[in-house]
């Protein structure tokens, strides 16, 4: 005769959560799959992104008034640094072409393992 299993309210709640998640997701995705929802969502997304863009523009003017750089200005500086980086990259490529050196920048000389590995089965059969 074994002891009866104790009901576990926490486990029951976890099951209920799983069921709720599954049915709610299914119901909502069905709703979202309609043309009406797709159209409405698309309009809302465009509107909210444009509003965000307009807000950034206004905020940028406020920052300029405070003599502080805007995000766009910082990005421009970052872009200029990247352009310099890209130019260096092109120079490096040209040097590689001219000198025939390896296109991969020199790295700390870590020993590379030999490329001689065989699949386990093949290695085992050779041993036997």
């Amino acid at each position, binding site marked *: 005769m074994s002891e009866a299993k104790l009901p576990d309210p926490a486990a029951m709640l976890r099951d209920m*959560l799983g069921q709720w*998640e599954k049915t709610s997701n299914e119901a909502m995705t069905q709703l979202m*799959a309609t*043309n009406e929802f*797709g*159209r409405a969502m698309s309009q809302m997304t465009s509107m909210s*992104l444009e509003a965000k863009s307009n807000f950034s523009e206004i905020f940028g003017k406020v920052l300029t008034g405070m003599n502080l750089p805007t995000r766009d200005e910082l990005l421009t500086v970052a*872009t200029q640094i990247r352009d310099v980086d890209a130019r260096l990259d092109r120079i490096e490529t040209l040097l590689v072409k001219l000198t025939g050196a390896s296109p991969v920048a020199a790295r700390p000389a870590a020993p590379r393992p030999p490329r001689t590995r065989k699949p386990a089965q093949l290695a085992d059969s050779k041993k036997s």
Partner: protein
Amino acid sequence: MSSAPTEAGVAARVTATVERAIQRNIKGLEYFGSAAPVVGASERDLIHSRGTMLLYHYRPLADEIFRIPVLLVMATSSRGYILDLAPGQSFVEFLLKRGYDVYMLDWAPPTAAEKHLDLNTYVNDFLPDCIARVQADSGETDVTLAAYCMGGVLSTMYMALNPDGPVVNFVTFTTPINWQKMGLFSTFSDKRWFDVDRLVESLGNVPPEVIVASFDMLRPVSRIAGNIRLWDNMWNDEAVTAFRRLERWGNDTLPLAGEYFRDTTKKLMWENGLVERTLELGGRKVDIGNIKVPFLHVVAEHDHIVPYEASSPLFKMIGSTDKEEVILKGGHVSLVAGANAQKRLWPRLDQWLQERSL
């Protein structure tokens, strides 16, 4: 026949429940005050970068490695550390320990000045550039390409345009090919109401919030349910850390270059160019049938982002005779990361790759 629960049994249950409730409160407070968990387990070197494009080489962990290097190609909207979350939970670490020489093409957020990057740049510039660097760094002419999600789409296009090498093995994970089967993504971006030109013109690059929101809408209540589960598991440090790693990755979504997004919407979503064989890049037709190298196609049975119907045509259309499709339990992310991946995908891939990496 069973007897009524004993007093000791009831007492033990009550004690455990109370202890967990106390731990939840203590650790819940710690949770809000603690830093996000560290991600990225394996030592690596950045060997090449150009704007948004980053090429890493992982330091080998085996004394002897397979001849052919493996280049992992990440999805353009996601960070590569999903494949290298933490020691013992890392696909990259697994490959390194199994003796592969691993590289990864990962992405930095494209800047405003990179909004002009389009599909052609990714396929005909970034990918061949990285493959050439891998060849130079490894000293090998042959390369294995293994790509995840949108990385798989770009790699498929590259492979179709470069069927004569240098890639000798091709692996894709959850790669969408038939974009008309992309479920809600297709509805949201229907050309009858989705004005992609206006979006790109007004924003430049597509911000990550749009991408995160669209992923969330595929399972609208899962974020709420996930937070309730987090509270339930708050007493369990391991579960909380695992949750936070994945949550960090999910929120660490990258913006997409404007022209790339426009191309993806028009050429893939609207025209379904890969399945209809109408896609052209750099003036050349992208025909998946051109791909003839050994091919492994891995798809997840319960993938809500890239449904099976969206990725399955790749296996049928590809020209390879040595090809295999593996359908595994799990979802879009759990296919490559997590316990499910460790048990199912990683050993399966290792088995397939070993004999083709000599």
